[in-house]
């Protein structure tokens, strides 16, 4: 009997027990949307950003929090920055709705890495291309030390790129610019060449005559026949996209762009 109890006691150690890796991020009030631990912003700038973020949350129905740190309790690496971002957001129960929809923008000065993490429906709303574009637009400000302008840019872009994949949507891209250049060049060459050759053709006056239209007088039609022979009809099927259609501008984005739920940028 004592042996069995000992065995049972030992077995208990074999049962896998879930151990939570410790969450080292601070506990905060999730009504506050900006945390400048690295002290990069003035009080006024913080207030203004807070207002902007609150406005975004109201309009777009997604949560947003911006955090700056200059030491990372987990360690110094991209992995730890990303971990901090996720932990901070989830620990403090940010996010709207059941899936905690929203985003966190974390500026980790210890490894000079800015990371955006998306949660819930935000993952669907922002494609990887969109996140890349948001970093593109803001990262120079961060590098220059204009932290307020940087966050302002992120917030503006959060409106623009929600549900809008820049590669497929189109307007902003430099790739389009170089395509325009090519078409302008091509068109200019084509039109100039055609105009020139049409003008030069007039310089050749001597032409052999092939018809006698100038000498034609009376015409009398003697036979007219229009006899119906056969008819046939062909048809081509029109393809309809029935693959669980998505609404909005990014209807094509789901198949050709990726959504990893965030991305980071070094500066």
């Amino acid at each position, binding site marked *: 009997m004592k042996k069995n109890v000992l065995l049972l006691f030992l077995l208990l150690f074999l049962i896998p027990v879930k151990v939570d890796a410790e969450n080292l991020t601070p506990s905060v009030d999730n009504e506050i949307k900006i945390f400048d631990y690295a002290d990069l912003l003035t009080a006024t700038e913080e207030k203004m950003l807070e207002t902007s973020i609150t406005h975004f949350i109201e309009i777009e129905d997604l949560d947003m929090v911006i955090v700056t740190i200059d030491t990372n309790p987990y360690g110094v690496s991209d992995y730890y920055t990303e971990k901090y971002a996720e932990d901070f957001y989830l620990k403090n129960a940010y996010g709207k709705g059941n899936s905690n929809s929203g985003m966190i923008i974390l500026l980790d000065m210890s490894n000079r890495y800015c990371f955006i993490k998306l949660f819930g429906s935000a993952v669907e709303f922002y494609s990887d291309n969109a996140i890349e574009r948001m970093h593109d637009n803001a990262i120079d400000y961060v590098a220059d030390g204009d932290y307020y302008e940087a966050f302002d840019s992120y917030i503006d872009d959060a409106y623009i790129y929600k549900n809008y994949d820049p590669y497929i949507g189109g307007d902003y891209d430099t790739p389009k610019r170089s395509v*325009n250049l090519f078409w302008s060049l091509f068109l200019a060459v084509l039109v100039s060449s055609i105009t020139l050759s049409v003008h030069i053709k007039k310089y050749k006056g001597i032409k052999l*005559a092939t018809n006698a239209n100038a000498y034609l007088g009376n015409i009398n039609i003697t*036979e007219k026949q229009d006899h119906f022979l056969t008819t046939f009809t062909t048809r081509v*099927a029109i393809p309809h996209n029935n693959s669980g259609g998505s609404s909005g501008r990014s209807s094509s984005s789901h198949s050709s762009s990726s959504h990893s739920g965030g991305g980071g940028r070094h500066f």
Partner: protein
Amino acid sequence: MKTVDHKCPNCNANLKYNPKNKNWICEYCGGKFTLSDLKENEKNFKETSLEKSKEIKEETQNEMDEYYCEDCGAKIIADKNTAATFCVYCKNTAILKSRLTDKFSPSKIIPFTKTKEDAIEAFKQVGKHKFLMPKEFTDPKNIQELTGIYIPFWLYSCKMNGHVDGKATIVTTWSDYNYIYTKTDTYKVARSGDYSYKNIPVDGSVRFNDAIMNSIEPFDYSEMIDFSYSYLSGFLAEKYDVSKDEAKKITINRAYQSTIDDLVDKAHRGTFYYTTFVPDNKDYNIIEEDIQYVLLPVWMVNIKYNEKMYTFAMNGQTGKMIGDIPYSKKKAFIFWLILFTIIFIVTLIISYFI
């Protein structure tokens, strides 16, 4: 048996008897005559013949010279007051002069209405609206030779029946939610017609460039009158050496082209508006025809510019002047470059705002 040489009432050439139709045909002007026509003509001829033949003989023998170019075989006629100093075609100056004795009998002539000064003036105006032409090209100094010459032409008239047939289609498309439909109806279509042509010209001189002569068309035949040697004074004339049959081939081809083009057009978009029409058969036959040999006035202008020779011709009646105008390659490139730059910038600006 004594053979009677009949003379053509139109042009005085020797007539050939055609046993098949029992009439006489003139090889020069294509006129056809019955015996009664000739007897009538000969009666009148006999009365005035003595004086006339004297007149003609005097005219031809005293007034007209014939020049023969050994290099290219050209035969040029001029009256004794107009010396021909070079061959109009090959520029050879060693030409042999003799009296004109044999027949030179065109039936009609359009006399010159444009003068030498008109020709020079027209040449000066050649560069109008041609901004790529070097301005110095139309300087009268460049004119090497300016010759007023009556060129021999055959004028061919005919009534041609043309026929075209082939397959035509009417294509209609429409669509519903599921499909795009294309319906093709096929028809057999034919058109035939009588087309009448009057006086299609072809130059009767082997030497003269047919294309140049085509380019100064048309002449106004309402001013065409019976031939007389007196119109030749002051100008040269050339004798024809393109045979009537060769000439007919060229003019029938032009008539055929016009006829078929018109019939195809009438078949394609005449009564019904077919989407496509492909002719399978094209045919023609001549119902009536007539040909005459005439002299038409041309100013030939030979230009030398930049070591190159240019030939310009002016219609001696209407004043239409034609030639190949040279253009400066440098000016052309600059023009292209300017156009290119403008279009390039404009399209860039437009695309920036779209």
